[in-house]
């Protein structure tokens, strides 16, 4: 949430009008008398800066993912609500479920999928993580 999401109250606007008339020394005196002004100002500036950076990073990430998806070969198509999906449901029905229910479905499918897994031989010269 940024500081200007809500319009300032009339009371705040009146104080702001008074502060605008102060010169630099008077503003310093005001901050000395009300140190919360400086502390809050630093917090707000930091949050706004961080938020803007986060937004940019998120946009960059989404753009990268969309590029990857755009390169994915025909005849695949993006998920549509009516497409069949996990748990014998449609995509729309699956994503309408609460997180805990989607997790339960996923866990059940996974448990079934690994039930019959076989063990495989590994080559004698296989690469082993160096630790």
């Amino acid at each position, binding site marked *: 949430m940024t500081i200007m999401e809500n319009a300032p109250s009339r009371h705040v606007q009146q104080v702001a009008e008074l502060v605008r008339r102060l010169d630099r020394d008077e503003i310093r005196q005001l901050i000395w008398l009300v140190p919360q002004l400086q502390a809050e100002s630093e917090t707000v500036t930091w949050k706004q800066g961080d938020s803007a950076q986060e937004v940019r990073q998120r946009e960059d990430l989404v753009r990268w993912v969309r590029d990857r998806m755009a390169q*994915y070969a025909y005849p695949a198509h993006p998920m549509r609500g009516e497409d069949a999906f996990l748990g014998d449901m449609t995509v729309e029905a699956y994503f309408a479920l609460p997180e805990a229910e989607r997790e339960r479905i996923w866990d059940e499918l996974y448990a079934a999928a*690994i039930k019959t897994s076989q063990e*495989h031989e590994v080559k004698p010269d296989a690469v082993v993580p160096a*630790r």
Partner: protein
Amino acid sequence: MPSYLLDKSVARRIVESLYHLDNLSSEEVMVLNLWRRLQIEGVRLFVPIGVVNILRRFAHLVEIGVFLSTVEPLRSGCYVKRWARRLRQHGFTREDALVLALATYGTDATGDILGVDVLITLDKPLLNHFQVHQLELRTRLLTMTRQLSMPYCRAALPVMLHPGESVL
């Protein structure tokens, strides 16, 4: 080239996030960032073969197809089940023991690797349990591997990380 195993919780998060890119939670941003970084670095990225088996029939959907195109299935190598049984004696749940055993004794489609460098999971109880018992697990694994032939005698515990931790 280091190898990474994304557990089922991370795989699900990535796949689900691809469906609603305009409305991502912070956890989804975190796993997508991880997925991107690992691809850019060109590491080998694995998921348990069970995840691939679940998703394969939906590969005609772009979101699923793209994800599957970036990962390889990690199959059980010999001794996965034996190691999982021992891990259960150290308080791991059945599924947690299996995924940790897979990260230790899993192999690729051609049997050219034994285990992965890093196991990534969102499961905080698993991460905590692993951290607490890591030393005794190493000792236990050493005892087990001494009796095995190549390459199984060289098996090593993976590093276990949360997607939010620095992985590269």
